[in-house]
């Protein structure tokens, strides 16, 4: 019972660091028009076919392609990513660069960092957990490919971790919690 209460008491502290979302607008965009109308953009067609549209609030960078597709990066939450995309679409529409559309937004990847309460016994974790890789010669963290949710976690001896590959926020929290319970159960978390 005490083990049970401990589990609910202590939760991993999760912080989402980056949300990457792809957007389909379903109409072509004249990138040169954007360059003429906006200050905070970067467009070097001979280097990269996309235009970089930076927003201050929410602080994101969005790549816009002439095909009408966009990639938004840098948002700290799914909500922020949506906000950023809508803001850009609104501004482009105000300048008559694009017509009326409903952007299709799909979150492609979420990167989050988390801290677990205690240190991790990496050397034993490699052998007890499935689908892991730990090569201290190459990288100090242990790479753990979780099945469900389908994410990749980099585990460090300090008890900190990085989780990537999630496509919604719930996956991140589920993964962190599942991992922590697994570590506690197998005695790999040293307090």
């Amino acid at each position, binding site marked *: 019972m005490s083990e049970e209460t401990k589990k609910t008491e202590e939760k991993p502290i999760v912080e989402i660091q980056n949300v990457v979302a792809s957007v389909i607008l379903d109409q072509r965009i004249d990138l040169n028009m954007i360059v003429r109308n906006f200050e905070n953009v970067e467009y070097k067609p001979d280097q990269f076919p996309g235009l970089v549209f930076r927003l201050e609030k929410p602080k994101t960078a969005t790549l816009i392609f002439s095909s009408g597709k966009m990639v938004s990066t840098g948002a700290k939450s799914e909500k922020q990513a949506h906000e950023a995309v809508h803001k850009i679409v609104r501004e482009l529409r105000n300048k008559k660069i694009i017509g009326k559309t409903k952007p299709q937004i799909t979150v492609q990847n979420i990167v989050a960092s988390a801290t677990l309460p205690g*240190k991790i016994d990496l050397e034993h974790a490699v052998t007890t957990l499935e689908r892991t890789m730990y090569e201290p010669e190459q990288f100090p963290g242990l790479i753990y490919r979780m099945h469900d949710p389908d994410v990749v976690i980099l585990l460090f001896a300090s008890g900190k971790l990085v989780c990537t590959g999630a496509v919604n926020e719930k996956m991140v929290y589920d993964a962190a919690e599942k991992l922590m319970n697994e570590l506690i159960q197998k005695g790999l978390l040293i307090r």
Partner: protein
Amino acid sequence: MSLPTDELQRWACPQCGSKKIVEDKRSGEIYCSECGFVLVQKLLDETKEWREFGDEESEKRDRVGSPLSSTIYDYGLSTTLETGIKDATGKVLSEKAMAEAQKLRLWQQRNRAYNSAERNLQVASKVISQIADQLKAPKATYVRAVQIYRDALERGLVRGRPINSLAAAALYAACRDSGIPRTLKEVANASGLKRKEVARSYRLLIRSLESKMPLSDPAIYVEKVASKLKVGPEVERETLKILKEAKDKKITAGKDPLGMVAAAMYLATQRLGLQLFTQKQIAEASNVTEVTVRNRYKGLREALEGIKEV
């Protein structure tokens, strides 16, 4: 009971679990060199029976081909039709029969699995042997590396990737698997590839073959660094002791094994009251930076001796 000798490497002693299994051709036994447990008795000797002097004599007495080897695509079990003008009874063949034989030979050669996979393995085997030579890795490791490469080839991992990098990765994997102290850096240098490339292929190998490599243990590098710096066995022993303590205290997790060795050896000389080398020298010998040595050294002193340096 006859098997390619390189198979031995995969064996473990059922008695003590040691992997140091040796074959003694004279007594015809395979036994564990750690505890002496005999795994196989009355082994068939695959080598030649007679002493011979000169090529002709050896040819006359030869009844079999070369022993099986997994470094060759078909394990050296290929068949070829003899070229000659006489048949088995010693009669000279007629022209018609010779033409027939020539046709058969051709078909037989084409029928042999001389395909791209075989050619690929041939090239890879050569590359691996070159790298292994440069690193002075033992023959058994080379053979193991070819085995790993063959596995990769059979799973289609090689397609679309350079042979070189996979060959180097296979050799590194073999070194790790058999506890031969060669770092990824050394393998990369010997193969003329970037460390990153070899590392990428190595990760691919491990992931796709679902093999578990033994953890790279700092202890296996101690001897190597020690011999480079020409320090005595007492330092080696103390270093191993320190590494063991460090491992028990779990401060080795996530740290470069070579950095750990360097710092432990430095601490060892201090404990023994010796001054054999500078931090710079040990850093060079173990191929890490001085900063790494100092940081690990600090960590070791804190964890093992309770000394906090400001």
